[in-house]
């Protein structure tokens, strides 16, 4: 211990000098910028636009580009709180179940003659309650999130299926249709898209500019370290689940309004697509790493990939395969790049060490 201190006083640095590799050079900065996942996503998005606009004249059409966002806005909105959940090391696969329950509640209320405002309120409230239920089980009883939300997924969807059976609610007030079908004023911009962008800005602000956001990263990297440094880990996680429920409620309002009906199988499979979006956006599934910019890029990348492939008459099955492959590649390649980078750094450190030793030898002699 004392020797260590002497050493560090001598070189005025905690790390042994010989292990310091200069990473501020232009070259290494360029390398670290180009290998950033967000940069790769931007390149892929541009590539996608160039390829599709060359293959079909209908791709680069403002109306088409705006209108096709209807197909992925709900999933995009669900992806935002999922970033928080995955960042802090949890997962929620019950979002589609929550949507089914919330949509069912709205359908029931509508059949009893509720107005648009009440419907939206009910939809959001059911979402929040369901999210709170998940969060309570995960944090209160300390059960793994994947097991809890797996069970609650069947429970939530099961409730709506038990009561609705094979029936559907199709009667909604006319005004209710605006949320999922309407445009802003007379423009071509869908309401759903604007809502998503506004929510993304808010969630991005919370994630990157507030202490709450920093807490998420701390918890994701080491929840016990976060706990010891005074973060009430369980409170944050509970908040995440409630937030996720609220957003599932919003998505349920939008989807129900867009398709104008509620069936028990509404939004089936959404949970996996949402997780795919988040992971494709560069958020580490083990938590602690990722940002909102990457996820927004991934949302548009995947959304427009599906749109372009649809224009080219490529079958839905090929799209499914592509999505699955993209998901794996999105984790495989950054992992590979990281390990290569680490290996290179180690090599340079070793080189530095040997040259320093040689220098010292020279002085001794």
């Amino acid at each position, binding site marked *: 211990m004392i020797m260590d201190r002497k050493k560090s006083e001598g070189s005025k640095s905690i790390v042994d000098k010989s292990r310091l590799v200069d990473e501020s050079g232009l070259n290494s900065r360029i390398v670290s910028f180009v290998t950033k996942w967000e940069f790769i996503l931007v390149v892929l998005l541009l590539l996608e636009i160039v390829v599709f606009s060359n293959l079909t004249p209908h791709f680069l059409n403002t109306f088409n580009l705006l209108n096709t966002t209807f197909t992925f806005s709900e999933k995009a909105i669900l992806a935002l709180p999922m970033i928080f959940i995955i960042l802090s090391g949890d997962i929620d696969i019950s979002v589609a179940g929550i949507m089914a329950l919330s949509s069912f509640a709205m359908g029931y209320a509508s059949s009893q003659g509720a107005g648009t405002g009440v419907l939206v309120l009910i939809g959001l409230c059911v979402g929040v309650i369901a999210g709170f239920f998940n969060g309570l089980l995960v944090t209160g009883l300390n059960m793994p999130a994947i097991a809890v939300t797996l069970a609650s997924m069947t429970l939530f969807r099961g409730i709506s299926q038990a009561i609705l059976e094979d029936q559907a609610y199709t009667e909604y007030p006319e005004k209710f249709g605006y949320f999922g079908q309407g445009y802003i004023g007379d423009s071509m911009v869908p309401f759903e898209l604007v809502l998503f962008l506004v929510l993304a800005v808010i969630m991005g602000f919370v994630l990157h500019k507030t202490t709450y956001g920093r807490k998420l990263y701390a918890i994701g990297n080491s929840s016990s370290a976060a706990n010891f440094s005074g973060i009430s880990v369980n409170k944050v996680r509970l908040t995440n689940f409630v937030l996720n429920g609220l957003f599932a409620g919003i998505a349920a309002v939008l989807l129900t309004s867009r398709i104008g009906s509620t069936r028990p199988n509404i939004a089936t499979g959404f949970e996996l697509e949402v997780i795919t979006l988040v992971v494709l956006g560069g958020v580490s599934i083990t938590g602690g790493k990722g940002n909102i910019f990457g996820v927004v890029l991934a949302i548009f990348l995947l959304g427009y990939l599906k749109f372009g492939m649809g224009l080219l008459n490529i079958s839905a099955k090929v799209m499914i*395969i592509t999505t699955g492959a993209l998901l794996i590649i999105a984790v495989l390649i950054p992992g590979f790049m990281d390990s290569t980078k680490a290996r290179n750094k180690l090599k340079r450190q070793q080189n530095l060490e040997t040259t320093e030793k040689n220098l010292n030898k020279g002085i001794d002699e």
Partner: protein
Amino acid sequence: MRELIKKREFTLLLLIAVMLMLIVTQAPSFVSPENILRIINDTSILIMVSIGQFMVILTGGIDLSLASIIGFSGMAASMLNQYFPDLPVILILFAGMGIGTFLGLINGVLIAFGKVPPIITTLGTMSIFRGFTFVMSKGQWVTAHEMTESYMNIPHGSFLGLSNLIWAGVIVSLVMYYFMKYVRTGREIYAIGGNKVAALFVGVKENKINIIVYSLVGLLSGLAGVMWTARYAAAVNETAIGFELFTVAACVLGGVSIAGGSGTVVGVILGALFLGILTNALPVVHLSPFYQLGLQGVVILGAMIINTLSEKRNEKKLLNRRLQ
């Protein structure tokens, strides 16, 4: 005796007995030998695949792709039968298992050498395998009249009064019970899930274990795929969609810890049987089949909560004993 009562398998057995008694008050014929055999027959596929899922969960992973493996290998085997009706069915059975093993191996390699987390790998391959099922079949089904008698007879044929499907379930259960309890590799699977670092230090090779486990799941899913398509005499592209969640549910019910490292084959079998009885009992007690999903959710959540609470109590007891 006390040890036995404390065991989770015993609790589950008790639960099953209580459930059966409740059902019997409504429908006495439910526990007739024929009906019990019918339920076991119905549940055999779930039992086989759940044991596979159990091994994966033991290592701390999860396999979401096994339903797609069932779909793919079932479709492949049925198409083999359709285009080469003269091929002996035993060869087709092995082909289905081989295809399943290969798909599982892909998962294993990606996880072991690609260092892609299991949930991501299998989420991706779930879509990929399902997509290729459609591509291979060109969206067509293989229906009963395109299959040979002998193919459809694989699960239905009987030996010593039990159907082949039950025999398959029994054999898989026995082999896996022995494997997980007495074979070195089986114990290594427990070791990896219990404490990975400790396991690595005593010489357990994590990559090898991952590859073995995911290939085995593939093998069992391949077998299940052949059985499934032959039993229902139809290979559709959507075979077994959502089945992966049932297998996880059976494991969770059977007391397998989702974090890995603990659980038994017997528990998983009982968990699967519990789900099987629940599904089969609904029409008997005049509950609408639409209640099934919700009831399953309640049962799984309830079992998990009871499990967690009893574990906590045990921990507290241990702590108290140590403090005294």
